[in-house]
């Protein structure tokens, strides 16, 4: 039996449940729950199926129907992917659970007494990867310019709940983390230097455009801020534009390293830098080359907005810590 009344789910994994107001204690379990999420780069149905508690029955037009498994009674989950613009409308038309990082939708949910908002874990780390000379290594926790830049990016540039990334990549990581022989870094492509990101990833876009802005003359922080993460790129005038690429094109461009700089997300591994490095090497093999040092910029997370009184789904399965 799954409920919001502070009970502990007895299923596999021992997922914690979100504290629920007393008014929801007696709420009967519905036959089905409608779960919506706005992150176009996430795959919530896959995450739920991977939890082992649901199986996918149908998936059509962005809507997946997930049948609960096991002896524990759970409602059928109808999971929909919606756009950011539809987030507030979804709350109004009766979506039971909304997973989103959109600050507008979250602000709207905060004004609604019938909704409760629970943060998910820091699940993404946005990385800046440039064809540039490596920045000087920084000591963990040092109050460096790079740390200031990260904090500023998290606070102002990104329209999502973000923090300065705690992930650090160092050249020494290559020595400590096992991996294949570093390949030779690709040659810098000709043309206007640009930062590319995956179209539809608003956080990556915000970070990329902010870095472009920092590269321009007259900025209050100026090229010095950019130089903390890509000194040679900043010395060359910095990236002049930020381009969003389709998923396929971005993946190919990142694999080939055929752009001046990239901003993209990796799954967060807060304490496992080798894991981050492995993820990075998977999508950008050339990043293992000497002198190519990625910079983690911000960590982000979404929130789970649930209708009070709705029970039957463990929040851990939706990504809540």
């Amino acid at each position, binding site marked *: 039996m799954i409920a919001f009344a502070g009970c502990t789910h007895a299923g596999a994994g021992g997922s914690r449940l979100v504290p629920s107001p007393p008014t929801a204690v007696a709420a009967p379990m519905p036959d089905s729950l409608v779960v919506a999420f706005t992150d176009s780069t996430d795959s919530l149905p896959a995450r739920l199926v991977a939890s082992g508690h649901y199986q996918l029955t149908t998936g059509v037009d962005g809507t997946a129907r997930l049948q609960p498994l096991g002896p524990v009674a759970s409602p059928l989950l109808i999971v929909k992917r919606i756009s950011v613009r539809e987030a507030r409308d979804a709350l109004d038309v009766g979506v039971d659970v909304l997973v989103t990082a959109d*600050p507008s939708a979250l602000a709207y949910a905060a004004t609604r007494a019938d909704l409760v908002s629970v943060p998910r874990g820091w699940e993404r780390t946005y990385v800046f990867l440039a064809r540039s000379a490596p920045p000087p290594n920084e000591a963990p926790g040092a109050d460096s310019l790079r740390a200031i830049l990260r904090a500023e990016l998290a*606070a*102002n*540039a990104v*329209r999502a709940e973000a923090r300065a990334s705690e992930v650090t990549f160092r050249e020494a990581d290559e020595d400590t983390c096992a991996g294949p022989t570093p390949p030779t870094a690709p040659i810098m492509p000709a043309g206007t230097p640009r930062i590319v990101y995956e179209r539809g990833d608003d956080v990556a*876009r*915000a970070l*990329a*455009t*902010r870095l*472009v*802005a920092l590269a*321009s*003359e*007259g*900025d*209050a*922080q100026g090229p010095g801020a950019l130089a903390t993460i890509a000194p040679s790129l900043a010395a060359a005038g910095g990236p*002049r*534009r*930020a*381009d969003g690429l389709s998923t396929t094109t971005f993946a190919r461009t990142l694999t080939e390293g055929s752009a001046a700089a990239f901003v993209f997300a990796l799954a967060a591994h807060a304490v496992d830098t080798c894991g981050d490095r492995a993820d990075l090497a998977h999508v950008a093999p050339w990043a293992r080359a000497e002198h190519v040092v990625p910079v983690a910029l911000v960590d982000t997370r979404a929130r789970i907005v649930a209708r009070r009184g709705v029970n039957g789904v463990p929040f851990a399965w939706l990504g809540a810590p």
Partner: protein
Amino acid sequence: MTFRARLMTAFGVVAIVPLVVIAFGVRRELDRRLTAQYRARVAALARVTGADLAQRGTAIGSRLSSLGEALAEDDRFRLAAVRGVNTERPYLLDYAGRAMRLTGLSMLQIQDSSGRILSSGQFRNEYDRLEPDLPALLAAAPGGAALVNARTPDGPLLVLARSDSVRLGGRTFTLVGGIAVGRTFLSRLAADSDLAVALRLPDSAGRTAPTALRDSSGAGGGDVIATLPVPYVAAGSHGRRTLQTAAFTVSHSPKALEALRSSVDRWFLGVLVLSASAALVGAAWLAERTSRPLRALADRTARMDFERLDMEFPAGRDDEIGALARLMNAMMRRLRASVSRVRDAERRAAMGDLARQVNHDVKNGLAPIRHVLRHLTQVEQEHPEQLAAVFAERRATLEASVAYLDTLARNYARLTPRLDVVPCDANAVARGVAAGAALPPNTIVALDLDEHLPVVPADALVLRRILTNLVSNATDALDGRSGGVTISSARVADGGVRVTVTDTGRGMTREQLDRAFDDFYTTKAGGTGLGLSIVRRLVTDLHGVLRVDTQPGAGTTVTITFPADPLSPNGMT
């Protein structure tokens, strides 16, 4: 060239030459006015484009002014921008983007008094950038608006921008807003599809460079009819920007006017050809109508000869052609009189010749008789006893001579019939012919006679032969069908007599009529072809006029007019 062709040419020239002259004059004047009006319209459209451009600059100012009023009432903006409340900073950073979309602008910056960008609509994350020179340059621009290459994450965006300011909490905030200047903008500036608007930006040296941007109409090229200068904030050396001058050029393609002219020309040429064709047709009709009676006179004149002096020219017109026909009729009458006199003279000459021949022949016949008589006288005086024997011997000579003379007399008597012209009652002759006509079944000969008909000088036998021939032809023309033949008589104005034989038979074609009076021409099986020829000769002998009216299938009417006095020139009609 025939008279008809000359007439047609003359009429055509008289009609077409003025028509062409007037037409080309009208065409030239039309083209002049069309071009003038078209150019005036294009110039007006260019002025509209200039006014539209100014109005757009004014509209940007109005939007910024409204936005400034809204800012003054926005507490969250005030908290973030004036009070520096950190929790409202995201609101401040997103403010320009929302305001830009709401106001329909393509670029919006909100700066503080130091020129630091607090919020940017077209480039959200360019906050904290310093750009103090832009508002100052815009404020210094003539008209308050200028072209600016605004920064965006995707590259520069050319906008028509202006600035405004608002004071909040004792601090001044500057608003810089603008609308994108692209192909769509230029297309909307072009007030007409025939106009093309392009933008020329100055180069780094301040010179106006070749066209940098054209509208999306594709109507490039053409004549530049207006140049609209506009201030341009250009990037200078060392990051310093300066105010220079760009230009919107309004050009017009002459193709539209040329197409209009071509269309007018095509219509004009079509109307001219139609008018000229109508004039030619009219000229041909007029020439035909004018020359037709002359051709009729010529045709009749061509058929005229000594054997055909009975024809008459139609003299019903009261114009020169009618007068000519009357003169021709008078000439025909004189010819007939002259021919009659010539024939009399010939007859007299022939009579003289005949008399001399008769004298000669009679003398030849009498000479043997005279010789026999002398011989017999001589024998009586010298040898009376031999008289009987000599007479018996010479009697055959005498008888032969007498027989020769007798034969000679009979032969001369058969040489030519002689007219016995006496006052003759044509009605009586007509009745006799009608009574004695050999008619096929279902055929009658009707009489329509004027009982007060004067006598006509004629030979009764000849007159009878004429009417007998005509009635015979009329009954033959019936082809055995039931029908009628009518003999009518009437008095004519000069005292003469007109006798008409009308049938309801098959009639004659024009070709048949032309040959009807030729010797040996006949359409009847077994006919001799001499009937009408004899009739015409007999009528001419009686100084009459013969007229035939016929239509195929409608019968034939033969009219014979006998003059009261055959030898008077005016005696016949």
